[in-house]
């Protein structure tokens, strides 16, 4: 029987499901759109991956499960995770495994972008975008749609440009009005796309790097790293080669799968994984306002087949302490 570890990264725009083998190599990685309901997407991903794996290896056993991304808590409760880890640590772990002497990691996802500084194989500093959507995949997606270029071809278009136009990169609203203005003045789509890529990178470095020292090697990952135009813009901005690892889109899920596996190996625990049967269970979520005190907390309840499996959002623990053993997975 093949022993595997599972990593799930529930992001704002996409959900990533990864299975790794005993050598930490990715044997199956899925990249799906989250589209409103993370629970359905997780189940869909697991069903697809399960079909593929059983076809390839026959019987499999999952020995460790980790979840990450903004939906990690929900995903962790639904699949029964051994490790619920923030995406910054997960991304850094995977990047260090792939490029051991990396010093700077650029990561651009759907809703957020981060920069992680690494020295001697350990995270020493990081920054994450705060109140701004500029420099994220969603913005690119939106602009691609507006210009009428499929997002997959965005990079190719940027490379064709000979003289990129300058576009304001501080804020998506200004960037968009600037782009429309340049377009009405007669700039070609190629030049606008190239200019947009450059301004996106400029904004990212201004916002997140903030004058900190950028040392090679550079690693670029996350959904946006598929875009060859942005890679070129990064290389121009830092004046050095930028490495895109082979699993660039699923690094977070891969990282958390490895972290969960390591955790299980060190502690020698049994996995909390509920098995592939969860894809057939019925999951509901409910939100209500607690009326216990003046705090009026927004409490979330997760229901599996009619039985509540998790509460969160309450400050005092009135609800979440009702189900202590199941919910508090390695919070410390």
């Amino acid at each position, binding site marked *: 029987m093949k022993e595997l570890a599972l990593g799930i990264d529930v992001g704002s725009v996409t959900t990533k499901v990864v299975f790794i083998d005993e050598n930490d190599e990715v044997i199956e990685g899925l990249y799906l759109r989250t589209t409103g309901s993370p629970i359905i997407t997780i189940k869909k991903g697991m069903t697809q991956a399960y079909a593929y794996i059983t076809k390839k290896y026959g019987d499999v056993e999952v020995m460790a499960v980790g979840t990450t991304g*903004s939906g990690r808590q929900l995903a962790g409760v639904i699949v029964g995770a051994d490790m619920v*880890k*923030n*995406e*910054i*640590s997960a991304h850094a772990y995977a990047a260090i495994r792939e490029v051991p002497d990396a010093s700077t990691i650029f990561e651009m996802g759907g809703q*957020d972008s981060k920069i992680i500084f690494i*020295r*001697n194989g*350990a*995270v*020493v*500093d*990081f920054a*994450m975008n*705060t*109140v701004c959507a500029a420099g994220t995949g969603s913005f690119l997606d939106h602009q691609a749609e507006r210009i009428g270029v499929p997002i997959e071809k965005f990079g190719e278009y940027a490379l064709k440009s000979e003289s990129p136009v300058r576009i304001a990169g501080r804020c998506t609203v200004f960037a968009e009005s600037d782009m429309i203005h340049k377009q009405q003045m007669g700039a070609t789509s190629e030049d606008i796309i190239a200019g947009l890529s450059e301004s996106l990178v400029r904004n990212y470095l201004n916002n997140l790097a*903030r*004058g*900190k020292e950028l040392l090679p090697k550079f690693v670029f990952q996350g959904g946006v790293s598929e875009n060859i135009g942005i890679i070129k813009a990064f290389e121009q901005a830092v004046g050095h080669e930028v490495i895109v690892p082979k699993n660039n889109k699923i690094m977070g899920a891969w990282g958390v799968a490895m972290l969960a596996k390591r955790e299980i190996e060190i502690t020698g625990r049994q996995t909390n994984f509920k098995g592939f049967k969860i894809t057939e269970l019925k999951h509901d979520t409910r939100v209500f*306002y607690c009326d216990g005190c*003046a*705090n*009026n*907390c*927004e409490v979330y309840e997760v229901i599996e087949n009619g039985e509540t499996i998790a509460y969160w959002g309450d*400050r005092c*623990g009135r609800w979440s*302490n009702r189900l*202590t053993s199941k919910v*508090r997975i390695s*919070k*410390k």
Partner: protein
Amino acid sequence: MHRKITYTFPRMGYSYAAFESFFKILGYDVMVPDPSNSKTLKEGVSNSPQGMCFPFKILLGQFAKLLKENPDKYFKIVSLESYGPCRFGYYSPLYNKILEDMGVTNFEVVNVEGIYPPWYKGVPRFIKKLVKLVGWHAPWAGVRAFVIAGWKVYAVERLERKFYHLIPREKVSGSSEKAFNRAFERIHHAPNKVKSIKKILNEELKKMDQIDHIDDVELPKVGLVGEAYMLMDYSNNLEIEKKLAYMGVDIDRSLWVTNWTLDRLLKTKQHLKHMKEVNKGYLDFFIGGDGQESIMNTILYKKKGFDGVIQVLPFGCLPETAAKQILSNVSEDYDVPVLSLSFDEQTGDAGFVTRLEAFVDMLKSRREIKSKESKAKKAESVTTR
């Protein structure tokens, strides 16, 4: 028209218990505003100027909700905005204007100033303001109320410090929280005698010590700096201290009601000395709010051997925004990681928890590197001998 007056004031976290008893001892009615929640925030945000600093929106929302819910009472709102070229100085005229525009009239705002040097001018002015606030009382009654409230503030602070110290060390998750809640309630309703407050405090501290916990663990240490009101009130900063403590971090908050009032209102010598020496080259002059303190405390934390510092920064606060930029220089010069968290009216804490968790992970990995390095150095020195 003489109506009975009800007092209300900014909550300042758990210290509200002390302020409440101050007015009660003097024989007044008092009502504590709700902690910030979605209702008060909505009230505050929709009625404030959009670019106003976040603490103002919080306070306006809390007061507006209280005044609206009790239209038959007449309130005196206590405000402590005595310093600063920052917007804090405009809070009370703004309360007046905005609440009146909202059609609420059953209130007046009383601004209590701190004691400014020279003391022979400052002290009489302070007393004058106090008399305006609470009316004329026999001096001993005022002093007694002051002393008892002071003791309660001190007791709550001791309990809170113990609480945050115990959380990462407790064996049964949640046991220290229970103990703290009980202890706080006892102090809150303690009889108004210094002796009994002392007695309750000692009893409860002993009880908290008896909670099953491990004392000799090495935890990453994090200091919290930032704007005073955001730091001191747990309902504004999404309970950042409790969250960090549950992640297994030893936390220390730089501003408490005690040291804040002592340092700022009385201008203690040590504070001034620290300000002058530590801030040299970074921020040599007063910019209002707690900007200078944020920088000073970051450096002091580093000197005390803390692993990292988190700056709690209310959105729109000018002194803290200025300090944030300077802190990135401090962070580089002193090799101390600083995380600036900007707070606004959002109550969803997903992004916030992600940053905290990643920050804590980073501090742990930095610790590991340091211990490895020091071990390697030791090994080297042994072999060279």
